[in-house]
């Protein structure tokens, strides 16, 4: 297997595609369908060249190349991280055995399902963000949006590669279905709920890339541990690209907070809406919403599926290699706080094996906490007392032990009436959304930026902020 990327082939790849007639034929058959899908469901804004990075290698010394690319001509390809010699299964009942280069028949259905679910999220976010380019606050942001979009497209390719290469006819059918399901479609929606919500404005986009793409990072992290080596290597390389998406989210929210802080200082009021800024309480409501729908993506706290996947070696824990236990978890326990209908909480002891979703969610939550910390530092540095916080894990939940309960952001269990009276203070109202949308006007002039967001401190690839990241002519 070569590590440099073959751009001679119709489909760039580092998997020696030209020597695999079967796979080549399958992927070349899928490519036009992908292009059709991109044309219909991809970015609505027409451009003539976006300053994009393209993967050119998977090694340590630089894997990306930057240049202006006409978006539909972007070279989506198939890249796997370098194989690790003598890699062994790190957990579950096959622990210590060599990893699998082929799908074991026993696990075909489960692996296929995992890959399809992961693959379904990738094009979904492109669909959700289809219209955002029309209201980009700057060329820099527009470029970032397209970068995220093409890389989500590439992640779809990565999953489709696995389906085509290892799952035969059924895999090819599933690969096509990934293009047939569409975000928000009433007849054929995306598999996971959070991916059927439109990303309506740029604050939502930043929040999505911060909170929801971060869920993706953790899911990829568990698949990177997989005993099925091609899946592991695929996810490892995807994680590299995913980091940029989260950078877009982190710095995007940074810049909104910075701009709001600046306006609060300038006008000496928290009510900055009329000065073209986004008030801090609306930002908090966006955090509350995006964080909690992303928590739902982790699934139920107890999951026999997750336990079976772990035991079988299909899906590990975050940083499995660094865990100091037996990696089989047949004897371990983990506490879970559950709401009671009488408004109290109780502690349950769960089998660690059944609580793997809870474990992953815990890792995710502490990661999210670091964003809150950094946004609060921006406020503190500006001398503003207001602070952001993550809401309670039970707030606004529709999946797991908290579903069906009314739990406030500070963790009190309340009745339905109390909840409905107060929810406008916690989640974005239609007025809030309409207000944010009212700020969304496109700014396509190099070096200029919308009123509600601060410019970035650095440009892309050493270029300045006023670089012409996107050509319109």
């Amino acid at each position, binding site marked *: 297997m070569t590590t440099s990327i073959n751009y001679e082939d119709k489909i760039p790849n580092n998997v020696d595609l030209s020597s695999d007639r079967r796979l080549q034929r399958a992927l070349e058959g899928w490519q036009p369908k992908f292009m059709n899908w991109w044309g219909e469901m991809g970015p609505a804004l027409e451009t003539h060249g976006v300053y994009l990075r393209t993967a050119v290698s998977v090694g340590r010394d630089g894997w990306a190349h930057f240049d202006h690319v006409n978006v539909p001509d972007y070279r989506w390809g198939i890249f796997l991280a370098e194989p690790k010699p003598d890699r062994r299964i790190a957990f579950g009942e096959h622990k210590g055995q060599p990893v699998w280069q082929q799908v*074991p*028949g026993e696990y075909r259905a489960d692996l296929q399902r995992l890959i399809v679910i992961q693959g379904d999220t990738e094009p979904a976010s492109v669909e959700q963000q289809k219209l955002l380019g029309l209201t980009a606050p700057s060329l820099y942001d527009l470029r970032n949006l397209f970068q995220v979009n093409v890389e989500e497209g590439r992640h779809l390719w990565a999953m489709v590669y696995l389906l085509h290469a290892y799952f*035969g006819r059924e895999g090819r059918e599933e690969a096509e279905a990934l293009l047939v399901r569409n975000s928000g479609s009433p007849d054929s929606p995306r598999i996971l709920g959070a991916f059927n919500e439109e990303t309506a404005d740029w604050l939502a986009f930043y929040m999505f890339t911060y909170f929801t793409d971060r869920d993706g990072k953790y899911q990829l992290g568990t698949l990177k541990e997989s005993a099925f080596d091609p899946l592991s290597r695929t996810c490892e390389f995807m994680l590299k690209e995913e980091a940029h998406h989260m950078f877009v989210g982190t710095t995007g929210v940074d810049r909104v907070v910075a701009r709001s802080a600046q306006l609060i200082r300038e006008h000496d009021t928290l009510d900055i809406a009329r000065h073209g800024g986004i008030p801090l309480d609306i930002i908090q409501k966006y955090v509350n919403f995006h964080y909690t729908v992303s928590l739902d993506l982790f699934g139920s706290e107890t999951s026999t599926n997750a336990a079976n996947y772990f035991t079988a070696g299909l899906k590990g824990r975050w940083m499995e290699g660094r865990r100091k236990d037996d990696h089989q978890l047949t004897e371990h326990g983990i506490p879970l706080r559950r709401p009671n209908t009488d408004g109290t909480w109780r502690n349950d002891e769960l089998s660690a094996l059944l609580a793997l979703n809870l474990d992953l969610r815990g890792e995710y939550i502490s990661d999210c906490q670091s964003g809150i910390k950094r946004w609060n530092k921006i406020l503190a540095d500006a001398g503003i007392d207001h602070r952001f916080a993550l809401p309670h894990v039970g707030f606004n939940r529709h999946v797991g032990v908290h579903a069906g309960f009314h739990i406030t952001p500070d963790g009190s269990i309340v009745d339905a009436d109390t909840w409905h009276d107060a929810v406008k203070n916690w989640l974005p109202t239609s007025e809030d959304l309409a207000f944010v949308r009212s700020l969304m006007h496109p700014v396509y002039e190099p070096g200029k930026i919308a009123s509600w967001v601060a410019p970035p401190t650095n440009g892309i690839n050493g270029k300045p902020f006023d670089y012409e990241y996107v050509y319109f002519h």
Partner: protein
Amino acid sequence: MDVSFDAHPSTYRHWATRTEGEIAWLVLDVDETGGIVPGYELKLNSYDLGVDIELYDATQRLRFEHPEVRTVVLTSGKDKVFCAGANIRMLAASAHEWKVNFCKFTNETRNAMEDTAGQTYLAAVNGSCAGGGYELALACEHILLVDDNSSAVSLPEVPLLGVLPGTGGLTRVVDKRRVRKDLADVFATRPDGVKGKTALRWRLVDELAQPRQVEQATRARAAELAARSTRPRDAEGVELTPLNREVTADGIHYEHVTAGYDRATSAVTITVRAPRAPAPSAVSGLDATFWPLAVTRELDDLILRLRTNEPTLGTWILKTEGDAELLRGYEKLLADNQDHWLADEILRYHKRVLKRLDVTSRSLIALVEPSSCCVGMLAELAFAADRQYMVDGPPIEDEDSTDRASITLTEANFGLFPMGNGISRLESRFYGHPGHVERLRKEAGRPLSPAEADELGLVTDIPDDIDWFDEIRIAIEGRAALSPDACTGLEANLRFAGPETTETRIFGRLSAWQNWIFTRPNASGDEGALRRYGTGQKAVFDRKRV
């Protein structure tokens, strides 16, 4: 140690056979010390697998080597004992899968005794006849019981052992002999059984004879039965010569059949080859090398050996190869001569071997490739399988070749080899859709392409040549990951769509209940009836009805 199913009258330990013109005598005289495995004595003409292997061999030889025989008298060589049935200590000491496999084989032999082609079985019960002994008699067309005021027929399994008379006993009593169910209930719960006139009145036997008249009455009845036969009197038999078989650690090779083991996937690939030379012009002057007989014997032997000796090879991959035209020549010869005793016996034998496949507790996966000969009687192997995969493309090893896989239906697929449920495999496959079977009949005689076979519902899937390897690998690996017990149950339920017959009731209802009872503590627990039999201790039952 592998069990061999080879036997020959010159080395029988438990049976004496002799023929007197149209009458053959099959005399059970079990060697007490001749158990097939150590640990028990075969007292009172009780039997184990070894005794039954000889019985099966004897019945087969009578069919093929002695066409002149019209009545087979089955009797005992011991004084006052006909047969005490399966040896209890053997059953008590056996692993579950051994018991189940043993019962299956004995059932098949008894079913075969009823599949007569002018050779009628007559049981001359000249002593006590209990359990499997009475079931052996039940498989005969006529039962003559000595009326000595002590010899009884009985099914004492329930009262004495806490299990069922599982070799067709319960089924044949009510189904075949039409004994009233209440009388059958009394009969099957009495350890001492029923004697003389009562046995006759309850229809448990057909005829009584005083001790000194037994032989005379038997001869008279045998002659009467023989008179009904249409067998030729002057035909030459075909000697069943020893099979040419090579057994290695990796498989078994015969002249026309090969089995290769893949222990990693718990699978065995069975390849059956079409004849290599054209068929003779008539059914005469033939010997055991005649392809249809030879291939059937080899397949029979292979099935029996794999079932008994390789219980962990859970998936059988069935393949065929060879020349379709040559195969059809043989098929036509047999089909055109169905009234010839030998053609008839071979067709019946092949039917019984295919039935063995139907009741085999292994996952059967048929592969149809460009090199296959999936035609007529060999295509039946595919239809017996749980799934059929067919390559849609060139041979895997030669992508430039123009060879393609095909399936050709012939008359052999439309009733020549019925299943135990009395209908053909295609009728079972399309049960409730007789119109579809009629449509298939119109397609008979020409090679059907993978797309056509798929369209006509003859195959499960038609992966193309580039998917083939992976699809098959995954199907086999996936099967190996499932619970073997659940697979057995699944397959046994799905294979027999359609009507019930005595045979399906024996392999379905009777065997399934028996196999459940075998594993229950009430039978096989330390205090269970089967384990406690003969210890002087009474069984302790869990009284809950399940």
